[in-house]
């Protein structure tokens, strides 16, 4: 059973002129396989910074703390090593890669993660099945990665990768934002399938409580001004739905 441990994580964003702007002010969080955690916080509180710095985006600099996956030092790994170690990030804004087809991209990624090429005989079916589950037209396989995809299509493509690549720990950064109700339901069902397998830990980052009606978190963490300010069970999400973040934001300012 896998465990992701984040201890006193401090992160700055690198500004174009080279200065550092501190964003994360000491984050502590432990996620175990089979658990679903929700991180909820207002815009600009540093949620994406947390997600990206765990994945190893070069824009962020770690200034303190540790991140380990089953005891291995994640922060010492390159971006691709982290993914191969079992980390997955569903991005808030998935990137377009012109000229690279979805089919080629997924086969290359699957080969990299598994350490061997998927079996020709079963791969086509596996891919088709994954696309069907997320109600993506088979024609998507021949399109370029994220190019010309609608917001909803990009997010469904992210969750399709989550199901195909089978990570140990998945961070979903605002997978719900910009989705209509149908797409939200399709995406949530995908996440719930992964959850039901019990093999992955999930860290669901969201601004709204809406997605939590479809995916029931085991733990809720309120994230304000670069750190976790409150923790609880699913009831905390309901309280946030009713009251909003005002109380916490005011507290952070004081």
């Amino acid at each position, binding site marked *: 059973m896998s465990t992701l441990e984040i201890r006193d994580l401090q992160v700055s964003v690198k500004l174009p002129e080279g200065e550092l702007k501190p964003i994360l002010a000491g984050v502590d969080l432990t996620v175990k396989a089979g658990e679903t955690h929700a991180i909820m916080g207002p815009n600009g509180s540093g949620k994406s910074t947390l997600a990206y710095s765990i994945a190893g985006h070069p824009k962020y600099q770690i200034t303190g703390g540790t991140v380990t996956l089953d005891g291995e030092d994640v922060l010492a790994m390159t*971006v691709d090593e982290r993914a191969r170690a079992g980390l997955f990030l569903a991005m808030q804004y998935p990137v377009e890669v012109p000229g690279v087809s979805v089919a*080629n991209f997924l086969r290359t990624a699957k080969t*990299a993660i598994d350490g061997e090429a998927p079996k020709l005989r079963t791969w086509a079916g596996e891919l088709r099945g994954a696309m069907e589950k997320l109600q993506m037209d088979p024609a998507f396989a021949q399109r370029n990665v994220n190019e010309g995809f609608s917001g909803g299509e990009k997010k469904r493509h992210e969750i399709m990768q989550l199901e195909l*690549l089978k990570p140990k720990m998945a961070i979903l950064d605002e997978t719900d934002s910009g989705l209509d109700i149908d797409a939200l339901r399709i995406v949530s069902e995908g996440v719930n399938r992964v959850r039901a397998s019990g093999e992955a830990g999930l860290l669901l980052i969201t601004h709204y409580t809406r997605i939590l009606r479809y995916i029931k978190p085991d733990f809720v963490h309120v994230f304000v001004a670069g750190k976790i300010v409150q923790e609880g069970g699913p009831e905390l999400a309901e309280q946030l739905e009713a009251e909003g973040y005002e109380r916490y934001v005011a507290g952070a300012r004081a």
Partner: protein
Amino acid sequence: MTTEAMAPPSTKSQVLRSFDVTDFPAVTGLEEEWRFTPVKRLKELVTATTLTGAAPGFAPGDLPAGVSLTQVDAGKVEPVLTPFDRVSALAFGAAAGVTLIDVAADTVAAEPVVIRVVGQGAAAAAARTYVRVGNFAQVTVVLEQVGTATLADNVEVVIGDGAQLTFVTLTEWDAETVQAQHVKFRVGRDARVNHVQVSLGGSLVRQFTSVEYAGRGGEAELWGLYFADAGQHIEHRQLVDHSVPDCRSYVGYRGALQGRSAHTVWVGDVVIRAAATGTETYEINRNLLLSDGARADSVPNLEIETGEVVSAGHASATGRFDDEQLFYLMARGIPEAEARKLVVRGFFAELINKIPVEELRERLGDAIEARLAKAGS
């Protein structure tokens, strides 16, 4: 003297034209047309009045029925390219003869015609190639330019009415080769040419492609793919002259640069004359800088003398490797070197797919990957 000087030159299309090299002043490098070119490296090609080196040899494979390749005297073909600079005049005058690739009218060739053009060494040489595609013929012609050469050459292409030509020219020259080439298309009524110009090898390669239309409904698509390594100068210029109504042109060139002092130049001129109503044209150049110290010059130019065009536009973009693309791929477990390969192959994919010869598409994809691997980037 055969000069037809139209003074003063007001547009790109109205410059000195002459078949006599001595009508053109010496090239200094300060001229608008030469300002990006390291003219010293062109040596005799810009100073001599004749060239005596051996011209490249032509090695045709099996030619399909209706297609022939012969060496003929200059008098046997009507010039399509009236030289408009010193190098094209030198190539015209100094070439010993003309290599004629003739495609008979109504020929529909199922297989591409692949011809190797082999440089005969560093002694400066001139050459003329003439491609004549008869009315309603459909053919793909590939010229693979390999070996070592110092070469001024003109390639003249006449596409007959209703004919369709896919013309692939590859420069896979050895590292020391210097070439200044002019390619000229005359597109017949309702004819179509699809040119794919791939420039990989050579020390200095400068290719000037021009298009004229002989009748309504002509179409020209000019695609270019180039990859410049350290020290290479690869220059492409186009002049598409719309003087006939209802014709179409599309120019799409893409290049990648890596290594110190890799230099590419793209200058795309499109002229739409007053008579050329109903014209549809677009030109775009994109460059991908894979490392520091490389330089890509990119100048689109559109001169429109009539308001009655269907559409006309241009675009140019030069950028560094996109780190967000790299991050996205690596975040899916793909190692950096492989992720870079995917992105660069993707950058060229649209162009490579224009080549209707699968073996060639694969070879080019591999050649590009080999270039990337060589730099260890």
